[in-house]
């Protein structure tokens, strides 16, 4: 690595640009200031801890510890998506956990068998950053997809009942809500994917190039990361929504209204 290192002072000064969104959120009374500060504070602390952890873990490099760390990431991500979904934790946590875990297992196989190689996949320097990228970048689409799905069911419940009374199975009656969830979650992703390289360069690739990697190596990693994040997001939403039926509907196929957090 022959990249140019950033000093702590430079990092601090650069981060002051965050004052702009905070002022805008404050000025327009968005109620997002506290959440923004907590989110970015958490991000900085968590990344620093990961940095410290990775330095130690690269030395130890135990597959068991690495997998435990991935498990912690899965649980933390599931809690985050659950809280942002406007649904009660006890109804939605398990489907989301299963969704993210399925994403990790399937993408783990893709990296293990096709990209990194099974002999390297459990190494800290591959497993933790890759799974971190995949889980972290799935969150946004998962939150949008799950929220859209349940909010639409709630607001169009009469239509769902009408379809059930026209002979639809619950699966068939929920089809349009699945359609809405995928469209809402992935339309922006597809649009932004189409202009990668034209309008913007992804952060990971830029980071790799800045830290001294060969551009083509960085691009190959970036391509597979974008593809697996996209596929992983769909897998997460698909699994979560499929499993959520068991938790959100009773044996009569009626929606449990108690799943929604009171606003």
């Amino acid at each position, binding site marked *: 690595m022959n990249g140019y290192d950033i000093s702590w002072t430079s990092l601090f000064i650069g981060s002051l640009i965050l004052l702009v969104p905070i002022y805008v959120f404050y000025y327009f009374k968005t109620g997002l200031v506290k959440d923004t500060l907590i989110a970015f504070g958490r991000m900085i602390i968590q990344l620093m801890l990961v940095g410290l952890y990775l330095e130690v873990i690269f030395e130890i490099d135990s597959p068991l510890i690495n997998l435990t760390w991935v498990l912690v990431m899965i649980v933390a991500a599931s809690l985050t998506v659950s809280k942002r979904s406007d649904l009660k934790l006890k109804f939605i946590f398990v489907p989301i956990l299963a969704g993210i875990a399925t994403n990790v297992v399937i993408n783990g196989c893709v990296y293990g068998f096709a990209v990194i190689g099974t002999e390297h996949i459990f190494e800290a320097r591959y497993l933790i950053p890759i799974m971190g990228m995949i889980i972290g970048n799935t969150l946004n689409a998962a939150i949008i997809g799950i929220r859209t799905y349940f909010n639409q069911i709630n607001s*169009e419940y*009469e*239509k769902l*009942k*009408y*379809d*059930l*009374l*026209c*002979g*639809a*199975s619950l699966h*068939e009656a929920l089809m349009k809500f699945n359609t809405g969830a995928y469209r809402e979650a992935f339309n922006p992703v597809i649009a932004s994917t189409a202009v990668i390289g034209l309008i913007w360069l992804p952060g990971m690739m830029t980071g790799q190039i800045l830290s001294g990697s060969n551009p083509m190596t960085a691009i190959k990693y970036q391509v597979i990361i974008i593809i697996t994040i996209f596929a992983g997001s769909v897998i997460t939403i698909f699994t979560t929504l499929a499993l959520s039926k068991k938790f959100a509907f009773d*044996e*009569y*196929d*009626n929606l449990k209204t108690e799943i929604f957090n009171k606003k």
Partner: protein
Amino acid sequence: MFKSIELQQVYKNFTERELFAGLDINFKVGDIHGLIGKSGSGKSTIVNMICGFDFPDSGKVLIDGKIAEAQDFKMLRTCTAYVPQNVNIIGSGKVRETIQSSFEFKTNKAKRPNNEQILMVIKNLGLDESILESEFKSTSGGEKQRIAIVIATLLDKQIMIFDEPSSGLDDRSKAIVAAYISNLRDKIIIISTHDIVLKEICTSITDLEQK
């Protein structure tokens, strides 16, 4: 084939108000049963209880004399055609697509109507065939009501539930709908209404204001 749906000694409170106290109703094949009462008298609650969307606080819902369980309600729903009070919910896109969408469900695929069948029912209900190419959202309330009846008719189920089917209809259309429903045979027909024309075609009536 369902022969009867029965509410037996049903008690139901709604927002701390007693809606039903010991309600008994028997819906039988061959009957056109009218649920009569003003808004808030519990007509929709009865429809919901028959279909397993709501439940009595106490009392029983019997299907063919047997206490109904989840699977029975689900089976009953596959044998039901329903005209909702709020017909705005039933469609999107063109009227033809709205009509055809109910036949995409597995249980209805075999009944998918051809163009002639759709046109015949449309004309019987006093609609012009050009409506098939109109946007559902742009049709009038009365037209939406009759489109919902067209779908229910084409579905040709054994249980037919009409929730305020005359709302938004003029006198001529009401007479057409009433004549149409009264000609349906060998079905359990339930009409929730306060309309005098529709009351007249009912063979049995439950007046919820006298319960």
